[in-house]
């Protein structure tokens, strides 16, 4: 099955990004395809490569980058939401790309399910 995922919140402050990551990881482990993760609202902050959590804490940005690389997942950051919040190519972590909201709608059309995580 082909999953699309929408993440509405940034890392750490809300559990949304953690839950979405655990869902995506479990989905690919079960042989499903995660075709795209779309980051909207504060979710764009998940792409900030400057993030440096304490050493005994999870690093969500790196977790997303690694998962995407390993399983060829398309990580898309909404350009409009990202501009407002100062997420630009300068700070974009590996595996993320910046694009338009159309990528979210497309994930809804092409995917079998769109799974949403937020506040």
């Amino acid at each position, binding site marked *: 099955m082909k999953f699309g995922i929408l993440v509405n919140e940034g890392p750490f402050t809300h559990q949304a990004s953690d839950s979405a990551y655990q*869902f995506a*990881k479990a989905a690919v482990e*079960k042989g499903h395809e995660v075709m795209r993760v779309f980051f909207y609202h504060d979710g764009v902050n998940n792409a900030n490569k400057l993030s440096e959590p304490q050493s005994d804490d999870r690093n969500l940005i790196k977790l997303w980058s690694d998962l995407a690389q390993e399983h060829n997942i398309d990580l898309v950051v909404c350009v409009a939401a990202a501009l407002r919040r100062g997420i630009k190519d300068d700070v974009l972590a590996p595996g993320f790309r910046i694009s338009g909201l159309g990528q979210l709608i497309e994930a809804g059309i092409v995917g079998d399910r769109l799974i*949403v995580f937020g506040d």
Partner: protein
Amino acid sequence: MLHTVNKSPSERNVLESCLRLAAKGSAILLIEDGVYGALAGSQAAKKIAGRMGDLKFYALGPDLAARGLSEAPLVDGIEVVADYGGFVDLAAEHEAFQAWL
């Protein structure tokens, strides 16, 4: 339809809205702070019990455990989903998905 509820019912009106609008035959998975809604004996428990006949209820195990609720008595009929793989299975089994945020 698989619905998720991720808010505590004593803090926000999310579970209440989901219970009001979820159509007969759909499933509700409590995740994140939403798992507090699974606790037996609360106001929310009565509302869940009231729809136990026509909705199926689940609570996510890792979120229960994180909050110290693995041993806590839950509303009768709520099924604990052991891990995120179980969440994925539920999402695959139901034809669509709605998050109540």
